[in-house]
């Protein structure tokens, strides 16, 4: 069904595009919010991505690549937003996290949800993007790499570094539990 809608949108059918917008925006907004950690900027990024998708929809060669392309547009819009935010931002506060006891089950160490949020927020945006594509949008790392236009090895590396940083921030020992487990293809 989606392929048919994409085909209609590509032929200039705005109604079909509208249906695609309705189905796509919620998860794009989720991804953008997780990447940018700011819902207003995330909305701007998603809108920018969707407008660009409509304008350039005829560049889509493979109709089944619609979702992946939207992810790319959204991530790129997030990158631009993050870049401009950095230009605007003044100081990013660094907060010493209370260290929790080290256990193999780290779920117990994040009773405070805010802890994870803050830890993610301090990751470089390119690492957050890989993590969001992989963990939130359920993309295998090979597809995440395609979306980001980077080699798979680079994607794996970013994911690994991001997870290690998180582990430290959350009170675990680097390398003590797991390296990132790639999701099933």
């Amino acid at each position, binding site marked *: 069904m989606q392929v048919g809608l994409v085909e209609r*949108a*590509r032929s*200039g*059918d*705005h*109604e079909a595009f*509208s*249906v695609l*917008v*309705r189905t796509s*925006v*919620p998860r794009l*907004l*989720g*991804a953008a*919010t*997780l990447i940018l950690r700011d*819902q207003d900027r*995330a*909305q701007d990024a*998603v*809108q920018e991505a*969707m*407008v660009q998708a*409509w*304008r*350039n*929809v*005829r*560049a*889509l*060669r*493979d109709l089944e*690549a619609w979702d*992946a*392309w939207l992810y*790319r547009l959204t991530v790129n819009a997030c990158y631009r937003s993050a870049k401009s935010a950095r230009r605007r931002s003044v100081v990013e506060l660094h907060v010493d996290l209370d260290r929790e006891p080290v256990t*193999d*089950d*780290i*779920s117990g160490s*994040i009773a405070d*949800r805010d802890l*994870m*949020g803050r830890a993610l927020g301090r990751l470089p945006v390119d690492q957050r993007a890989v*993590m*969001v594509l992989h*963990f*939130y949008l359920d993309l295998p790392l090979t597809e995440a790499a*395609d*979306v980001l*236009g980077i080699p798979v090895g680079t994607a794996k590396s970013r994911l690994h570094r991001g*997870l290690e940083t*998180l*582990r430290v921030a959350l009170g*675990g020992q680097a390398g003590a*539990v*797991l390296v*990132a*487990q790639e999701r099933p293809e």
Partner: protein
Amino acid sequence: MNRPMSLDLVVAQWMADAAPQESADQLVDQIITATAGQRPRSRWLALLQEPPMQTQNRVLVGSPNGRLVIVATLLLLAALAAVGIGAFLLQQPKPTASDDWPGFRGDATHAGLAHVGPVGNPVVSWKASVGAPIQHDISILGDVAAVGSDDGLLTGFSVADGTKRWSFAATPPMGGPVGTDGTFYAVDGDGVVHAVRAIDGKALWASTVKILQPSDGVVADGLLYYGSPDGAVTALNVKDGTQAWRQPVSQTAMRTPTVDGGTVVAVDDHGVMTSLDARSGAIRWTKPTGVDPPGTPIIVGDTIYLGVGSDSTTGKLVALKASDGTERWHIDRLLFGPSIFGSVGYSGSADGSLAAIDLTSGTALWDAKLPAAQQRAPAVTDRIVYAYTEASHRVVALDRATGGQLWTFDLDGSNQCCVAAAKGKLFVATDAGTVYAIGGDNATIAVGPIPQAPPSAAPTAVATAAPLTDLQPKLDWIADHGPKDFIPWSLAKAPDGSIWAALGLVDRFAIFEPDGTYRETWGTSGKGKGQFNMRRANGDPYGMVAFAKDGSSYVLDSGNHRVQVFDKERTFIRQWGTFGMRPGQFSETGGIVVDDDGTVVVIDNVRQVIETYKPDGTVISTIPAFPDELHAVTGVNRGANSINIGPNGDYFLSLVEPHLVAEVDREGKLVRTYGGQGEPCALTEQAGPLAWDAAGRMYLAQGPERGDRPAVLVFGPDGSCLGGFGKLGGGDTDIAFPASVIVDGTGIYVSDAGVPDRGYRSAIRKFEPLASN
């Protein structure tokens, strides 16, 4: 089970929880609206513009860099070719850039051209009701379809599924919207123009300038244009509603302007066309076109096309040079203004035809015969012509190339304006308050033969009707005193012998002594007690008064959707009625009469009922005014102009179309009809009010477009045709527009609304009674 979790699962779970859960509807609306005004880039440009996205062995999006040189070369060649064909393309009408349908007849050129309509068999995509008649156009912007309705609402529906997105309320009735750049503009019953945001219905501004009873609006290049009954064209700034300019161009009403390329073209009620500068309103030229009454002009390239109005019995289709109004060609047929694709125009006709006309030569390519005279402006795509015909309230789709029928679709009421095509759907609204979005199943369907149904109402009836016996009675007196703006409509005689003429255009009554001496004027405009709004939704001045034997009066306050009761001293006693479709409510009243026993009777054309009330307003009965049996006889139903009670106690309804009087008994059953085609006393205009004398003779009025037939037809007690009187003219005994007739033992009273621009006066005349045999 509480198992230890690995970090990646924890992160995944946290992300799932942390992502926003609330609805993204507002963002979705913003995106849809933002993109609705844009078109996707052409493929070559998009391929260049969009960075390539690849899997390991395939290019999914965009163009790899290695092809850029080739593409650039092709671009250069394409640009050269584009220059060559540019001039040709400039002459062709183009659909609106975004597949929107801004308003009446599409965009500001009124060419009626759409991107994509329904393809295949018709399928109701959705159907929605607004609860009040819709008499104007539909506007489509992005994912919102907006309609104005007689209850004063502008309602926005989702184009995709018909979900009501919002409604905006103002003084009833709400006119048809026109839209651009994410904003709808509509005029309310007070003549105030409202700007309403498409995505959420938020009011952006209301004009301080009032344009009463304006034409359909048209929007182009930052300005909104309206014609008005005072003969002016007005332009407002879309950004804030301020008046950009106002240009008086005629002594008669101006019809909907058309705009293209910095030029506004507007035509008055008699076909005098004026070309104005769109920015300044400066007049460039004015010329009579010979099309009287005219429809809406259409501009394509350097040619203006003007067809006849929907109410025409004479006229032609003309093609004029836009530069100076010089005629290029004309066709002596009653053709409406064409919807245009390429060099072919598709014109409905008062004779029931829908014709394809080669606009370069004026020759007909095909000619379909639809089963009724009344049509609305078609919408045309590259493959299909979508039209509406009043017979069975039917939408018809014809193959554009051949005129062969593709399908028909019947609606639940009459379409009073036009069809709109956009987003793969056809949008049609009815006076039953329903909005249809008709999609297609994309099936390949066979093209049928060109429809050849005979027209149901031939406009040549005037010429074929046999002459009638002239019963011209002697004139007793003529009265045209009273206020300066004296245009009498409904008449009533009070028990004290005074004659009350409803001046419906100014919401007052002019009262005359029995000898025709002007006594006084009573009433003011407004919504309060003792104030009136005598105009019904379409602007017709249908307010009126009926008297009970005790001298109390019942004013049908039609625009306020109520009945007001006054004692014989004109002290307000009570009122009843609100706008609505339930018993005791009014939607579109056509007349009021008080029976001998004091029962008040009102006909409502939209509720399609005759309702009776006790003097205190309690509903006694509600019966169908237009029973199925009547439909079977007439084929179409556009309501009644008046109601009266005959000597036998039956109700007599003066129908708008076909031109008939229907006698209906107290059970709502059709007894018989009068004045039909082929009868000696055939009506040649809409049936007007009627009355009886003591001998049981029925006096039936008909309007000014009756040709050489009399203003008042007289029937014997058995329904036989006795003759008529009142020829069209400006003489003392002539009657131009008999808006009402009452008869008693002292004589025959006829109110004549006149036709001022033809020199026919507005007056009340009293004639002596006809001889008893």
